């Protein structure tokens, strides 16, 4: 079966999840990856959305983090303050997914502004949950489209701490959580060096060259001593993912027909 780079990216992210993980899930690719994992190799995977839905099992992907589907299929739904107090800050989440407009080689993220904060070129949405997800989940998975505007030499703004601007700050701050352990892009996966915490490519997606990855990265990119080939999507993975997207599209079309707007 043929597949897109976006599908490969989602599937690579899904594979990184373990059956006993409790995930703090964001909208978009993280949501697709988590639900794909739940529907394939990790049926016990627990999904928590910051809207307060705990152990939700959505049949279709939410467009927003607070969709009714999430509540209707959750074990229970708590208030947003409780979600951030008892569940995120309480250390109950093993994996947090984060993205952003920019990431640097140490997994620090910018989702605030491009340009100067006081007079930005592009005003981005802002932190949302990310600033505390980054420090309070046991491990962080970062998902990004791979291009030079996203994987940058230097962030315009540090919204969410990875391993720190020099790779040493996180440890120095005494945080007990691991921080970013994985970056998944549409070209490759990267993991941090155990000592320097600089991310290095550890697997290339099928058909992607080292040169192609380096050309699309804003810093002089390192490769791990051993670089694997990402196994291509299995038929089961692809079918499950496409069914999920098809169900989602059908549900949204139905809802659009039923809705009226303002």
């Amino acid at each position, binding site marked *: 079966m043929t597949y897109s780079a976006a599908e490969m990216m989602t599937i690579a992210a899904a594979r990184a999840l373990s059956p006993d993980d409790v995930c703090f899930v964001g909208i978009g690719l993280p949501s697709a990856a988590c639900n794909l994992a739940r529907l394939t190799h990790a049926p016990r995977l627990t999904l928590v959305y910051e*809207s307060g839905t705990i152990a939700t099992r959505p049949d279709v992907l939410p*467009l927003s983090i607070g*969709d009714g589907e999430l509540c209707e299929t959750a074990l229970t739904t708590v*208030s947003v303050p409780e979600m951030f107090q008892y569940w995120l800050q309480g250390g109950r989440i093993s994996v947090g997914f984060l993205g952003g407009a920019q990431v640097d080689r140490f997994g620090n993220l910018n989702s605030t502004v491009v340009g100067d904060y006081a007079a930005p070129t592009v005003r981005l949405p*802002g*932190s949302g949950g990310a600033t505390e997800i980054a420090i309070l989940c046991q491990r962080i998975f970062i998902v990004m489209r791979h291009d030079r505007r996203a994987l940058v030499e230097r962030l315009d703004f540090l*919204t969410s701490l990875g391993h720190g601007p020099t790779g040493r700050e996180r440890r120095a701050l005494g945080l007990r959580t691991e921080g970013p352990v994985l970056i998944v892009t549409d070209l490759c996966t990267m993991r941090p060096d155990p000592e320097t915490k600089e991310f290095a490519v550890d697997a290339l997606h099928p058909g992607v060259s080292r040169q192609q990855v380096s050309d699309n990265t804003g810093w002089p990119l390192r490769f791990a001593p051993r670089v694997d080939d990402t196994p291509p999507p299995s038929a089961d993975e692809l079918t499950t993912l496409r069914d999920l997207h098809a169900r989602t599209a059908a549900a949204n079309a139905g809802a659009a027909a039923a809705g009226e707007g303002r």
Partner: protein
Amino acid sequence: MAEFLSLPDAVSRFVRRGDSIALEGFTHLIPFAAGHEILRQGITDLTLIRMTPDLLYDQMIGCGAARKLIFSWGGNPGVGSLHRLRDAVEHGWPRPLEIEEHSHSAMAHAYAAGAAGMPCAVFKGYVGSDLPRVNPRIRFIACPFTGESLAVVPAITPDVTVIHAQRADRGGNVLIAGIIGVQKEAVLAARRSIVTVEEVVEDLGTTGTNATVLPSWTVDAVAVVPGGARPSYAHGYYQRDNAFYTGWDAISRDRTRFLAWASPLHGDTHL
């Protein structure tokens, strides 16, 4: 005791020019009808407070009703930017917008602190982030027992909070169900509050339960506004109009298209 009022009466009685105002909702139960009534009445110079300013605040900012925004995530969920918010921040159109920016955890804690009568919220947050550099209302204190550095932000105590809920009983007690967000905290933290509801029922059916209820004596006005959350949704009543959210992107990208969309909502004073 909550008074039952029409939406125009509730807004004119309890929302004032220059107020700090939270129209809360977390995707679910966003009080669009009340926000539009505020625009219709031309109430301006508002400080808008919300964790997730989405289309409603984009509309209010585009209409020039706000002088300041306190927020933690400003986007069109699953779609993209809020173009009116961006235009105000990036180009000062139709008027400059002051920004006070937090994280979700900070705002959730700050609403809870407001509801709990605290002057500030103490939590684990902002470690290593640049946000404290650009927001002087983020401070740090040491735990007196462990020495650990903890973030502190001021409690959120809006002049007025407006929310939409599923229903009230005849006594003015309000039930919120489903994704409940920070709405209860936002009402309890506010000096004044308006709740729009889908319907009024004889009995909320919450006796003996642990349901999320705002007793009548915590609310100033209840206004019955069926569909008051559209194009957001009301669990048990109607679904989210995702097509409107998606379509908003094109309307809001363009000042002219936005002004045409907004013209029925203009008050007299601000555009």
